[in-house]
C-alpha cells in the first residue's frame, strides 16, 4: 500500500499555490512534510484526499496503490477516505461537530465503512476511545466536544481517523494547536499507534525537532515547491537548502532528545 505523489499542483484562482510537488511514501514508512506556514503543505494533504476548499483545483498525479486519486469522483474518494487513508487535522477545537457526542462521531466512521448498527458502533467507539487512552471511555463517548480538553479532543479526532484501521495516516500539524505539555503525549500516542499497526504516516509540521521524533524521511517545502528531500538525519546534520537551515534554527529542540526516531 503505497502513496506516490507526482508533480502535484494546486491552483486557487490564478495563483498556483502548490507547484509540482513529488514524493513517495512506501508501505510502512514515515515521511514528514515540513515547511513554514503558507508553504503549501496542508494543501498538499487536502489535495490527496479531494478535500480542497471550493475554488481550489488540483492537478498532477497521486497514485494510491496504483489508483489515480486526482480527478477521481468524490463518491469513490469517499470510500477511500477513512477506510484506507485517514487524516487528523490541526485544530481540535473546530474539527469536531459541536452538537454531536464523541461516541457518535467516532462511531460514524465504522458505520460508514463497515455497516455496523448503532449499538455495535457505540461499543466500537468505546473500544477506540480506550485505544487512544481517553479517560473513562464508557462515559466519555456520551460527552460533547466542548466538555473535553484540547488534548482529549485531539485524541478523539485520532480515534475517528483510525477507527477503520486505514493503511495510511496523514497528520496535519496535529500538535501545533495544543499545549506544549500535551504535545509530547499526543506525539507518543501517534507513534505507538502507527508502529503497532504498521501504518504509513505522512506527518506535516513546521518544526524540524518534532519531525525528528516521528519521521524517517523529510520533504522540505517552500512556496509550494520541494526544495529538499532527504532522510531526517541528513536534514538535521547536513541540510543542503537554506530553507532547511532556517527551519533547523527555529526548531524547538529543548523538549526533545536529539537524533532520529528509533
Amino acid at each position: 500500500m503505497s502513496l506516490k505523489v507526482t508533480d502535484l499542483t494546486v491552483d486557487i484562482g490564478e495563483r498556483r499555490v502548490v507547484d509540482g510537488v513529488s514524493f513517495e511514501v512506501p508501505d510502512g514508512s514515515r515521511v514528514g512534510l515540513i515547511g513554514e506556514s503558507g508553504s503549501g503543505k496542508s494543501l498538499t494533504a487536502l489535495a490527496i484526499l479531494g478535500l480542497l476548499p471550493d475554488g481550489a483545483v488540483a492537478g498532477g498525479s497521486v497514485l494510491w496503490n496504483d489508483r489515480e486519486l486526482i480527478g477521481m469522483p468524490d463518491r469513490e474518494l469517499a470510500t477511500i477516505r477513512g477506510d484506507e487513508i485517514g487524516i487528523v487535522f490541526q485544530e481540535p477545537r473546530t474539527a469536531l461537530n459541536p452538537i454531536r457526542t464523541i461516541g457518535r462521531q467516532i462511531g460514524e466512521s465504522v458505520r460508514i465503512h463497515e455497516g455496523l448498527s448503532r449499538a455495535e458502533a457505540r461499543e466500537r467507539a468505546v473500544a477506540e476511545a480506550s485505544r487512544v487512552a481517553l479517560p473513562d471511555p464508557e462515559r466519555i463517548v456520551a460527552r460533547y466536544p466542548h466538555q473535553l480538553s484540547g488534548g482529549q479532543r485531539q485524541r478523539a479526532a485520532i480515534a475517528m481517523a483510525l477507527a477503520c484501521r486505514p493503511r495510511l495516516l496523514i497528520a496535519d500539524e496535529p500538535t501545533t494547536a495544543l499545549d506544549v505539555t500535551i504535545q509530547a503525549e499526543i506525539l507518543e500516542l501517534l507513534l505507538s499507534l502507527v508502529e503497532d499497526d504498521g501504518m504509513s504516516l505522512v506527518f506535516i509540521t513546521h518544526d524540524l525537532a518534532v519531525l525528528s521524533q516521528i519521521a524517517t524521511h523529510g520533504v522540505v517545502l517552500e512556496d509550494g515547491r520541494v526544495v529538499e528531500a532527504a532522510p531526517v538525519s541528513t536534514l538535521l546534520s547536513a541540510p543542503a537548502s537554506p530553507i532547511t537551515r532556517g527551519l533547523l534554527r527555529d526548531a524547538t529542540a529543548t523538549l526533545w532528545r536529539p537524533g532520529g526516531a528509533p
Partner: protein
Amino acid sequence: MIRYTLTRLALLLLGLLVASVLIFLTLRVLPGDIAQLIAGTNSTPEQIEAIRERLGLNQPLPLQYLEWIGGIFRGDLGSSLLTGSSVTSELAQKAQVTVPLGIMSLTIAILFSIPLGVLSAMRRGRGDGTALSVGAQALAAVPVVWAGMMFVVVFAVWLGWLPAQGFPRAGWNDPAAAFRSLLLPALTIGIVEGAMLMRFVRSATMQAVGQDYVRTAAAKGLTRNAALIRHGLPNVGLSVITVLGLQVAGIIVGAVVIEQLFSLPGIGRMLVADVSARDLPKVQGELLVLTGFVLVIGFIVDLVHRVIDPRQREAT
C-alpha cells in the same frame, strides 16, 4: 437551565411592561384634545367634558395607566370608543382569520426558503446557484402589497383559480372556502418573507460549508455533499431558529397590509381601521396584544434554542 428560564421570563415581563408604558404614553399624551376630536367641531364644552369623564381623562396619568393594566389582568382590554364593543371579543373573533393566515404564511416561508437556500449555497458559483441567490434578493426587495396585487392579477383575474378578496361569511364552518380565501394571501406573505429567510439560510449554509467539522466528516468517508447535509445543516437549522422570531414579526406586519389588500376581516385590517378612526382605547389594546405576541415568540425561540444547543445547556 431553570435560572436561564427565569431570567428570560423576567426580561419578558419587563419588556411587556415597558411596551405597555410606551404604548400608553404615546396614545395618551397628545398635542390636541382627544375628547374634542371625538366630539367633533360643533360640540359644546359640556359634551366634551362628558366625554372626558367617560374616558377617565381627568384622572392623573399614572392612575389611568394602572386602571388600564388592572383591566388587562381581568381580561378586559378596553372597549371601542365608537361602538363600545369589547376589544377582547373583537380580537378573539378576528383572530380566526389572522392566526391561520400567520401559520400558513410561516409554513410556506419555511418550506420555500430552506431547500432553496441550501441549494443556492451548495451550487454557489454555478449558474443555478447564482440565479437562485439573485432571485431571492429580488423577491426580498418586493413590497408585500405589490406582490399580492400581482398574485391577484395572475391567479384571480387571469386564471380565476382563487378568490381575489374576502373571507366567507360562514367563517371556518366552511373550511374549504375559508382555506381558499387565505391561500393567496398566505402565499404572498410566505414567499416574500421566505425570500428574506432564504438569504439567511444561504449565508448560514455557506458558513457551514467552511466549517472544519464538515471537512472532518468528509475525511471519515462521507461524500462532501453528505457531510454538508448531515453535519452542516443541523447547525444551520439552529441558526435559523434564532431568526425565526424576526420572521414572525415580519409576518405580522405583512398580515396587516395583506389583510387590507385582500379585504380579510382580520386583526390587521381592524387595526388599520381603528387607527384611521383614532379609536384610541381599541388601538391601545390591539397594539399591546401584538407587541406582547412578538415578545412572547422571542422568549419561546430563545428557550428552544437554548434547549437544542448542547453547548448552552450547561452554561449558566
